[in-house]
């Protein structure tokens, strides 16, 4: 679970309880120097509490937070060499763009000329027009405000930058642009970024590694690709977008059985033992077959509906009570009509067994 380089931030058994409720429960994590690490989780998973502890706005109930091997649990936010971009952005409404960016420097008694020079550099780097320097920050657009907030945090020159869902209120197109810009800034500055979001899509685009949180626990950490292709639990696999999940029981070596479908499936050899299990097959790995022998696992169903998803088309196929999702590229659509009997299937290496939790 270590990063690609020396860890800058380490969490040991970090726990935060509000009354009897553990908002963050026993988290262990190392974040590497210069890494872009994203914590993903649904609302109420404890991710905001976690980042607030890292930034110094909450104190852990127990456990240790180490910044370059120095324990910082009790170091207040204003003495930590880290900085956060807030969900609300928290720009100072009574100040201009320039004054907002220079805030940290003013607090450090840097002289006005040096402050302005630095602010203008950052404005240029973040594509803010130079004449915005003396513009009141409340008159800026959503995207501009994002950039001002980022510039203000960068002016602090933090060792780690935290982000608390800053893009959640931005419309789709602008968000995509800002995600890319943020990743560019990460490259240019080489700083460690710790980002939290409830959007997996956002996490996938930007991160070096992703940690998935659920009910206060970090349930899986890995590269975007690992999280996507080898989820360890049903929760992670479903969080990562549309999937087909079949509750199954072990049925001897390399095979599982589904009660509800009344069918057995071949599964990849390295599969989990014990606990209740689910077989997960992503829609892009399901195929329409012309005969059952075309794939090692197959099911007979009825084509129920189809949806256009941009570059792909998604088909709903009913097998008994269960609905399966099959995706194909738009250029190679399935030639069949609704209510047709169809045969769908997949090969074991394209499926994974996960814990049913």
């Amino acid at each position, binding site marked *: 679970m270590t990063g690609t380089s020396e860890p800058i931030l380490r969490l040991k058994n970090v726990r935060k309880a509000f009354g009897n409720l553990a908002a963050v429960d026993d988290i262990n994590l190392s974040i590497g120097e210069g890494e872009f690490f994203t914590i993903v989780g649904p609302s109420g998973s404890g991710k905001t509490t976690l980042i607030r502890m890292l*930034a*110094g*706005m909450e104190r852990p109930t127990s456990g240790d937070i180490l910044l370059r091997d120095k324990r910082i649990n009790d170091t*207040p*936010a*204003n*003495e930590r060499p*880290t*900085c*956060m971009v*807030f*969900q*609300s952005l*928290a720009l*100072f*409404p*009574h100040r*201009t763009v320039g004054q907002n960016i220079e*805030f*940290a420097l*003013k*607090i*450090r008694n840097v002289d006005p000329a040096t402050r302005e020079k630095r602010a203008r550099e950052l404005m240029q780097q973040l594509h803010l027009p130079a*004449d*915005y320097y*003396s*513009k*009141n920050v*409340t*008159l800026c657009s959503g995207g501009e405000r994002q950039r001002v907030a980022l510039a*203000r*945090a960068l002016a*602090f020159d933090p060792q780690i930058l935290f982000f608390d869902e800053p893009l959640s209120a931005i419309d789709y197109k602008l968000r995509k642009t800002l995600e890319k810009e943020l990743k560019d800034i990460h490259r240019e500055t080489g700083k460690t970024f710790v980002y939290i979001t409830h959007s997996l899509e956002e996490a996938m685009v930007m991160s070096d590694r992703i940690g998935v949180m659920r009910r206060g626990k970090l349930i899986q950490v890995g590269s975007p690709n690992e999280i996507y292709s080898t989820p360890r639990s049903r929760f992670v696999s479903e969080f990562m977008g549309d999937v087909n999940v079949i509750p199954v029981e072990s049925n001897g070596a390399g095979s599982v059985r589904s009660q509800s479908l009344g069918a057995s499936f071949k599964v990849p050899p390295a599969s989990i033992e014990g606990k209740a299990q689910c077989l997960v097959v992503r829609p892009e790995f399901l195929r329409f077959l012309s005969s059952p022998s075309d794939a090692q696992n197959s099911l007979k169903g009825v084509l129920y509906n189809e949806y256009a998803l941009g570059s792909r088309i998604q088909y709903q196929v009913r097998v008994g009570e269960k609905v399966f999702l099959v995706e194909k590229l738009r250029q190679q659509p399935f030639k069949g009509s609704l209510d047709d009997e169809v045969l769908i299937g997949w090969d074991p290496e394209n499926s994974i067994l996960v814990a049913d939790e």
Partner: protein
Amino acid sequence: MSENNGSIRHILIGVWTAAVLLFVFLPSATIFLASMTSSRYFTFPISSFGLDWWSKILNSLEVRSLAYTSLSIALSVTIIAVVLGFFGALAFARYDWKGRKLYQKFILLPIFFPQSVLGLALLLWFNALGFTLSWKTAVLAHLVWIAPVVTLVMAIQVYSFDPSLEEAATDLGASRWQTFREVTLPVLMPGIFSGSLFAFLLSWGNFPLSLYTTGADNTLPKYLYAKMVAGYTPGVPVLGTISTAAAAVLLFGGYTAMLFLTRKRNAAA
């Protein structure tokens, strides 16, 4: 047809608005008219107009001392009420603490007490405590009623204050005091401003609390009442007009200043 309906509706709205404005402002206008007479008594319609009473009042030493007392009380009340109200409003609307709900209810209660009863109660207390009644005891009395009002006025501003602004300032390295000076105070400035206007104007025009608690000192509203009861002269409406006009000027002046500052800040682009 519908256009016709529309114009009738517009006329009716206009008439209604005018009627309401007349209802609200006519009494004050009457006071002004009553002050413009040159006769000894108030008669209506006014038989001979003149500014004799205006010059008499403006040159009267007694009136100057009254205005001075009222001003001293109002300014003292404003300063103390704004400080109390500011921190009171933070406790009211910004911070979560045990007993906050109870505090929110109790702090607002004095606003709804009948002021004449409150004045009497304070008088009893001042006597029991052995205070000599003067304009200073009136300041205390005004505060009992005005500090809650100012707290409420400022709390409205504090409610719209994003707490993450303070966190952001702290996160950027600011100490508690720097955060307060650089962020909390300036962001809440409009609330402080309207709070002080409220404090000043409510104290300036207050009669029932002053009646009981000023002792030998006299304020403008108290003097007006005394003169009405015994010894009416057209000097009374003159003083009334001055008193009302001062409040209006302060209110409009303050509003314009605020508007000007906001414009200036926004136009800096």
